[in-house]
Structures are given as C-alpha cells and as structure tokens.
C-alpha cells in the first residue's frame, strides 16, 4: 500500500472520532486505527528490509518529498507500536476519571493527530518540511499535556510550549543556514539524500553553524541537558498514556532529525559533530543520573530517566564506531518499549494510590500486587538489569566503546548508568516493598480499606502485558528481520 495512505490513516481516525457515537466508539476507533497502522508500518518495514520499496518511493516526482530507509522504517514501527499499546491503556485509564464526552472526544482527536504528526517526520525527505511537522507535534501534544487543566498541568504545558517553540526558532535558522550551505556548494535537491551527496562541496563554517543550531534547537525538544528543564514537568503532568507517547517516542522521533545530520557532517574535515554528540550526551546522562536521586514524584523519576536515555543514545552515536551505531539503534528500540511500559506501570500506581508523591506510597505490593510488581519490573527494565532489552542495548554500546578505545567516555557512561540504576531502584523499592510509618498501627486495628485490593481495568492490564513482551523478548533474542532493520538503520548514520 502506498506510503501516503499509511500516513493518512491516523488523520482519518482523528476525523472519525469527531462523530458523536459515544465513548466506546472513541476508544474503538483509536485502538483499531493504531493497530491497523502498526500492521501497515510493519509490512512497510519488512518491504524495506527485503529491498522492495513501495512504488511511489521509486518515483522521481515523490522522491523530493518522501523517502523511507531503514532508519525511518525503524522509527515508524516504534511510533505505531507505542501508539497502539498506549491507545489500549487509554481505554481503561481515561474511563477511571469520569470525563465529559466532549472532553474525551478532544482527547482522542488530539491523540490521533499527535500520532499522525509524529509518523510524518521520518517519512519526509525535505528538512524545512520536517521543521513544519515538528511544530505540528508541539501543537498537537500541548493540549494533551495540559489535559488535566490543573494549575500544575498548565504550568508544565506552558513551559513545554515556550521552550519547544524557542528551540524551533533556533532550529529554523539552522535549517535555513543548511540550505544556504548547500546553495553555496553548488546546489542540488534539498533532501537528506541530496545533502549527503552535496556535503563535500559545502562550506564547513556554514555546516558547523547549521549543525549546532539544529542540535541546540531540536535538542530542546529531545530534552538534552542544558535545555531539558521542561521535560520532567511535561512528562509527569500529562495523563499517563500521553506520557508514554511523549517519553517513549516523541523524543526519539525528534532525535531522528538530528541523527540525519551525522552522515552529512562526516564529509566535513574537522567538523567534530561526533565530539559534540558525545559531550552533550555524557552531560545529559550524568546530570540526569544525579537529578534522579532527589526526585519526589515517581512520574518525574521516569521522565529524568528519559533524559538519561536520550543522552546514552547521543553519546553512543558520538563514539563513532559502527558497532556503537548499531547499539544506539538498539537503545532507541529498547528505550521506546521499556519507557512506555514504565509509564503504564506509573499510571497504574497513580490509579491505585491517587498520589504521585514517592514518600506517600509505601507497600504498594500488598495493596495492589500487579501494580507493585509492574513498577519494580519497569524500574529494573529501564535501568538496564539483565536479561531485559535495555541491558542488551547498553551492553552493546559499552562493548563498542571499549573496542573503540574510548575508555574515559565508556567508563563515565557506565558509571552514570550504575548511579541511575541505584537512584531509580532505591525510590521504587521503598514505594513497593517499604513499610509506611503508620502501617503497624493500621494492622493492629485491622482497618478494612487498607486491605481492600485495587483492581486495574482489563484494558490497562492488557496494554501492560503487550508492552512487557518486547521488553522480555528483546533482552535475550533479536529476531532476524529486526536485526536486519537495525543494521540498515545504523548504516544510515554513516556515509
């Protein structure tokens, strides 16, 4: 099926949910559209792996606008996968807070539009067009972040919008400078492929300027450290399924745009794009690892972990070895699947306890065994405990770093990962297994409501199981098609 049709499916879903047929219709349309999207995108990815591009990708008229290679296909699959599990999780989660039908319709319409805006990013070939779509992702997600309409949610959404748009302004100038560089180097078509071809003739000063402007501008939206301040707020105040989207795939799909610049920059002698990536990545990982230790809110804990993971991916690219590139691609996959699971677990804990405060939650495993177990599993998975997905990808990156002889960078990376592990697990351990100060008093009086078990909605449990499967499987076994896709994606990062 044509790539354009695949892209238009979520847009059609956004229109369909506007028809007032009731709550079941809303949830049904979103889930079915996302699942269908996932199937189509997986098929597209398999075609890309097998070397059979869909018809219009071979058509010259479309190639100025649309291009799908291994890297784009990988990001597309992740967006559709997390989009599907988060849509299933939304069904039960949003039903818990009795919303007006109009408000719920707004949620589903925005949800589908947000998925649409993210899906378009990896498919477009024209950098300026991508910049416009990145603006659209901010537009579509801002109202999801402020969805709760509380004072805190509005503050988070405001920070998110202002900083993202500031970054967009800087990135816009970067893209215009990139175009000027191409023009000064004799021209060509302004697409990613055209840029890679024209790169050796482009003036280095302009390319470095453009790279830094885009790295800073879009890095704001990825959550790289000096520009990360909005991320823990937005990624903790949004409803939990939206947090899964924001943390799991929005950050990665913006990072994808930065990654596209690396093959272009490799043509420039002394451009040091890799060094910038390594330094900025390590700063992000280190800062996030220490900030993790002092959080008071468990959703912020996972948000900081996203900053850490974005740093790991960027640092892995910065190591500059093909094996590390492969590891970075693996890390993108494992981060997306694991982080979405973590936010589902956090959402379940929020439903079970009604608070986001770490100190207020003790002994969750006794109150809701499933939620407690999920939270511990999510914590172990996201911090890289073996034999789960993140462990395998982080191990690949560290191994490649050592093989490359980058002992200092690899050592720092490993140390920060270990600190983050203890930071996350110390908080979660107390939440799940800890004994609260008044627990003994409660037991002696045998207060009935303390023992009342909390039951998670079926759709939430289903979404968590679906999200946990890849976390478990990818830790021990990478299927052949995925391995080929990762190899293709890693190859797209070098000339």
């Amino acid at each position, binding site marked *: 099926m044509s790539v354009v049709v695949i892209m238009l499916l979520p847009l059609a879903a956004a229109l369909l949910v506007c028809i007032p047929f009731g709550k079941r219709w809303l949830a049904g349309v979103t889930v079915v559209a996302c699942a269908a999207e996932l199937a189509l995108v997986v098929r597209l990815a398999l075609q890309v792996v097998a070397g059979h591009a869909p018809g219009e990708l071979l058509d010259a008229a479309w190639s100025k606008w649309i291009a799908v290679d291994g890297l784009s296909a990988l990001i597309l699959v992740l967006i559709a996968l997390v989009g599907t599990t988060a849509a299933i999780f939304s069904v039960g989660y949003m039903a818990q807070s009795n919303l007006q039908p109009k408000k719920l319709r707004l949620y589903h319409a925005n949800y589908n539009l947000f998925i649409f805006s993210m899906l378009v990013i990896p498919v477009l070939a024209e950098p*300026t067009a991508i910049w416009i779509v990145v*603006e659209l992702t901010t*537009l579509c997600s801002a*109202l999801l972040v402020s969805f709760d*309409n509380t004072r805190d949610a*509005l503050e988070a959404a405001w920070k998110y919008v202002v900083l993202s748009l*500031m970054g967009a302004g800087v990135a816009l100038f970067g893209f*215009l400078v990139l175009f000027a560089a191409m*023009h000064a180097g004799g021209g060509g078509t302004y697409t990613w492929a055209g840029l890679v071809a024209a790169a050796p003739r482009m003036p280095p000063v302009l390319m470095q300027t453009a790279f830094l402007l885009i790295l800073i501008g879009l890095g704001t939206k990825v959550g790289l450290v000096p520009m990360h301040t909005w991320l823990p707020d937005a990624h903790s105040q949004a409803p939990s399924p939206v947090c899964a989207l924001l943390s799991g795939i929005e950050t990665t799909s913006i990072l994808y745009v930065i990654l596209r610049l690396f093959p272009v920059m490799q043509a420039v002698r002394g451009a040091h794009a890799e060094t910038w990536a390594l330094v900025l990545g390590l700063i992000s990982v280190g800062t996030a690892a220490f900030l993790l230790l002092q959080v008071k809110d468990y959703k912020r804990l996972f948000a900081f972990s996203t900053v850490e993971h974005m740093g790991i991916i960027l640092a892995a690219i910065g190591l500059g070895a093909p094996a590390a590139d492969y590891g970075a691609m693996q890390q993108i996959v494992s981060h997306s699947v694991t982080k979405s699971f973590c936010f589902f677990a956090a959402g379940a804990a929020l439903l079970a306890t*009604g608070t986001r405060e770490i100190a207020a939650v003790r002994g969750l495993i006794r109150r809701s065994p499933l939620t407690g177990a999920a939270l511990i599993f999510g914590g172990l998975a996201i911090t890289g405990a073996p034999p789960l997905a993140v462990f395998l990808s982080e191990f690949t990156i560290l191994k490649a770093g050592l093989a490359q002889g980058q002992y200092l960078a690899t050592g720092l990376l490993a140390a920060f990962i270990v600190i983050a592990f203890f930071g996350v697990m110390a908080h979660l351990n107390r939440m799940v297994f800890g004994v609260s100060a008044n627990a003994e008093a409660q037991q002696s009086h045998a207060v009935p409501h303390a023992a009342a078990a909390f039951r998670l909605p079926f759709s939430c449990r289903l979404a968590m199981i679906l999200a946990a499967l890849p976390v478990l499987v990818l830790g021990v076994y990478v299927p052949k098609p995925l391995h080929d896709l990762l190899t293709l994606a890693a190859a797209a990062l070098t000339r």
Partner: protein
Amino acid sequence: MSAATKLLLENLNALAAGLFLLTAFGIVAMRQARACLNLFIAQSLLLAASAALLGLRYDSGHLYGVALVNLVSKPIIVPWLLRKTSSAEIYTRREIDQVLNIPTALLIALALAIGAYFVGIPLANAVGPQFRGPNVPIGIAVLLLGAFTLTVRREALSLLIGLLVMENGAFLAGISIARDLGMLVELAIATDGLVIVFIMGVLVRAVEKQIGSTAIGALASLKETAPASGTDEAPR
C-alpha cells in the same frame, strides 16, 4: 535594472532592516502589552518590506510570496486569532514586577546585538559575496533579543510576542541567505505564527481561568525541591 536602482534597493533594504532591529529594542523596553503588540506588527511589516525589496533586487518571485504571506498572517491574522482565543483583558495589562529594570535590559540587549554582528558577518561572507548585507547579523540579533525578552518577561502576551520576534529574526536572516528555498518558506511562515498564537492563546485562556491572571511567572510550583504537588487532586 541599472546599478543605481540596485544600490537604492539595497539601501532601502538596509533601512528596513535597521528599523526592524529598532522595533526589537522597543519590545525589550516596553512594558505595556498593547504597545508590544503594535511594535511586533510594525516589525512584521518591515520584514515584509525587506522581503519585497530583496525580491525586487534579485528578481525572485518567492520573496514576493514571503512578503505577501507576512503581510496577511502577522499583522492581520495574529491579532485576530489572539482576540479569538484569549480575552480582551490581556491587551490592557502592564507588567508590574519586572525581573530587570529597563536600562539594564536595554544594555544587555545592546551587548547581544553587538555580539550578533560579530557572529553574523563571517556567516554571511561564507555564503557568498552577493549575500553581504545587513540581514544576517540583524536577523541573528533579533533572534537573540526575542530569546532575551522571553527569559525576562512574566506576562503571557509579552512572552508570546518574544517567541514571534524570535521567528521574525530567523526569517529576516533566512530570506537573504536561502532565497531560493521556495514555497516551503512561505508555508513555514504561515504555519509558524498561527501555531504559536493558537496554542499559546488557548493555554493563556486556561491559565487565566485557573489562576485568575495571565502572569505566567506566578506558575512556579514544579520543582525538585518542593514537595510533589497534586496529591489532593483526582488521579488521572
């Protein structure tokens, strides 16, 4: 086109760019929301003028398009959309608690503008001799001034205008160095202003309902040091 006409057009463009920079300084100095908005409209008109003059000078149809889109979107649609999405009261506001006093703010703005000049000149030269002109350094200066406005302001409308000023700066620099980019620049200008105003307008209205004012600076509870908030709210 004779050499004298070309020179005249270039000088007129330099005049427009100079006035463009002046409006950015005005926005840094003004505390009245309405005055900021008027200055922003004047700035967008100057951006359109610069695009039209450069279009005439280099005979580029796309720059006429940029001028036209700017004329329609920023002075007309942006204020209209603002009025639609948020209340009229936002216009009459004046910032009372200022982070920096006006002379200090202007001095910092001046330093930023001078810094931008030294960054912008080599950049414009690297593109080619025909791109020498005031647009790149002034565009970078205005980009920085917009970012500066954003960091020191607390009132919603002045923050919004700070963002729009940043984009205006990026476009002023962009149209001179990337004038063959084509239709996408027009599209970017059109979507950009509208996205910013629409989303910020909706948020401002929600903030106003929630805290009874548009002083965004008052929203500062999300921090690591403060105890996590939201405990008394319904779980979501």
